[in-house]
């Protein structure tokens, strides 16, 4: 059968990764992968995906960030139950960290296939840029801030930043984990403790963000990959962006350690969150498609596909039992942290899309204006207090 699969993986690295899925699916089964890429970020794609599911004309499979986003769709009975094949495949034991599968679980049943682990807390640095500025490549955020004046003097943008709320929110979140520490972060993000959000540790975060804002003053690109491109081409010193940026470096033929450096947790806290992408399979009527859906689900999590996909995408596999030795040094760093258990639940799981959107709006405003750190914090506290 022809399986229409929607996703929003359209950048160079992402497209390369998704083609691994398609290739495997077409080669290993009798079915066809009909690609339904939607450009723009999840923000553009999600409404389309959701309205099609609600409208009774669903695709056969779709990418969605797993977590709370899809709870209601599952609740409404619009998603295929994958529990059987999950049990058959022993996903419970395979998936590491197990939180990923928990995010796919609703009232004890499994509804999605996690395909990768994404962590957002990375600082990507351009060797070329620092060479031009005549300073050593920093080893953590503090060094980076210290090196910024030199970069500026060399006519470079210290920090590349795409002017979109979600990117700025990633930067903010990363700074939080690094500066406020894991405990406070957990208190705020998981437990929605507004008092902590109003506290001193978060004040420091907002001040750090305010200074980061200055570093990114001259970065006026929109898309994340354009910001990454500034780093790749040595126009900017660094960028705070998730591990998917890895894919862009790869496509550009750059070598980790030689051409660029990656610092998980900004080089301060060796810890990463475990967000990720997952595939859902909306309920369809055609039995042939139903069968194919299950085949695809099984395939997505199979070892070879996981390796191929994640190598291309620069993300981490969801299985702990596969050989990722061919991964580059950045990925190895991530795998190491994962192995050490330095994981945090991702915000997709902690915060509702509603809250996330509000925080993103705040960040978008904060990064683009002269909003003071204190005001921003006050508004942040407000959002956290109302978060559900």
């Amino acid at each position, binding site marked *: 059968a022809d399986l229409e699969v929607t996703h929003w993986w359209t950048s160079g690295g992402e497209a390369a990764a998704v083609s691994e899925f398609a290739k495997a699916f077409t080669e290993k089964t009798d079915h066809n992968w009909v690609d339904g890429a939607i450009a723009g970020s999840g923000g553009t794609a999600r409404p389309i995906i*959701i309205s099609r599911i609600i409208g009774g004309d669903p695709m056969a499979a779709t990418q969605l960030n797993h977590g709370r*986003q*899809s709870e209601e769709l599952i609740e409404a009975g619009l998603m295929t139950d994958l529990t059987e094949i999950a049990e058959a495949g022993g996903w419970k034991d395979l998936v590491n960290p197990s939180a990923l599968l928990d995010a796919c679980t609703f009232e004890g049943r499994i509804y999605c296939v996690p395909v990768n682990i994404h962590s957002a807390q990375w600082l990507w640095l351009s060797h070329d840029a620092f060479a031009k500025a005549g300073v050593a490549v920093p080893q953590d955020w503090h060094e980076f801030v210290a090196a910024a004046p030199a970069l500026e003097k060399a006519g470079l943008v210290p920090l590349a930043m795409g002017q979109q709320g979600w990117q700025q929110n990633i930067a903010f979140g990363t700074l939080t984990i690094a500066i406020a520490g894991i405990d406070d972060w957990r208190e705020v993000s998981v437990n929605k403790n507004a008092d902590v959000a109003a506290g001193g540790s978060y004040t420091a975060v907002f001040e750090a963000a305010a200074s980061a804002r200055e570093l990114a003053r001259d970065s006026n690109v929109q898309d994340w990959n354009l910001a990454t491109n500034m780093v790749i081409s040595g126009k900017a010193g660094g960028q705070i962006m998730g591990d998917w940026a890895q894919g862009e470096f790869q496509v550009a033929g750059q070598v980790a350690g030689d051409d660029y450096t990656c610092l998980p947790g900004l080089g301060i806290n060796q810890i990463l969150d475990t967000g990720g992408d997952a595939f859902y399979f909306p309920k369809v009527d055609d039995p042939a498609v139903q069968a194919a859906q299950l085949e695809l689900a099984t395939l997505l999590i199979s070892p070879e596909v996981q390796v191929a996909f994640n190598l291309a995408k620069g993300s981490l596999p969801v299985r702990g039992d596969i050989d990722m030795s061919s991964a580059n040094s950045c990925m190895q760093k991530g795998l190491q942290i994962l192995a050490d258990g330095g994981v945090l639940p991702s915000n997709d799981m902690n915060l509702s*899309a509603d809250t*996330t*959107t509000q925080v993103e*709006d705040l960040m*978008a405003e904060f*990064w683009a204006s002269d909003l003071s750190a204190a005001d921003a914090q006050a508004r942040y506290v407000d959002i956290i207090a109302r978060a559900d």
Partner: protein
Amino acid sequence: MDMNAAKRPNRWFRNLSAKVASIPMILTALVVFVGGTAWTVFYSFTGSRLLPKVKFVGFDQYERLWSTRRWMISIENLAVYGICSLILTMVLGFTLAALLDRKIRFENTFRTIFLYPFALSFVVTGLAWQWILNPDFGLQGVVRRWGWEGFNFDPLNNPDLVIYGLLIAGMWQGTGLVMVIMLAGLRGIDEDIWKATRVDGIGLVKTYVQVIVPMMRPVFVTALVIISSGIIKLYDLVVAQTNGGPGISSEVPAKYVIDYMFKAQNLGQGFAASTMMLVSVIIILVPWAYLEFGGKKHG
């Protein structure tokens, strides 16, 4: 001869074809416009998230809406954009029409030049102007490269000016139609009025301002309706040109609605916002629509 009174036939079946033929219109009006709107208003009082659910929360969504900074900025932006665009489009549209009406050569050429952007979508418009207003490659960069180093024209990256960046693009796209409407209106003005002003020795500009413009009131109303119906829907242009940025400084209500409905998966909030848009439309429109279509019998 039979002088008996004839029974008045049933009202419902008189001109049945007309009624049958109007069914699509009636359905659209009732089901889509009234029904859809009522549905939206109804669910704006619920705490619906990704899917509509009947879980009443009273006016919570509205309270939150009006305490949201992004919404306030959106409203403010729409007001600024709306007022500027209304005034400028009218003025420019009328000026162009008046210039074209002066029996000039190449009237067709000029008219085509002013009208062609209307053929292009807002997405295309937004992209084209994003490109021209790009500080490095676009106008600013070019002028600087010509030697005027201090030249500064970067509205899309300046939160205070970005709305005017949108305005430049919006006007570019929409003025042509208004011009055509104005031109049609100008052509409808009694030739004798022009003669009368010439005999009275009224200057050209004064004639336009004091005589012609007031006479074109219905045309201006038509143009006003067309422009304002476009303004309130302002969305595509923003998404294509600035995507609300920098920061949230070019957000507009329609985008707020879409974002909260789909991205934030808070239908209730999105519906509350769209209800507010609807309310403002109705407040502005109903009196006008009544006067224009309800009151008069014919014509």
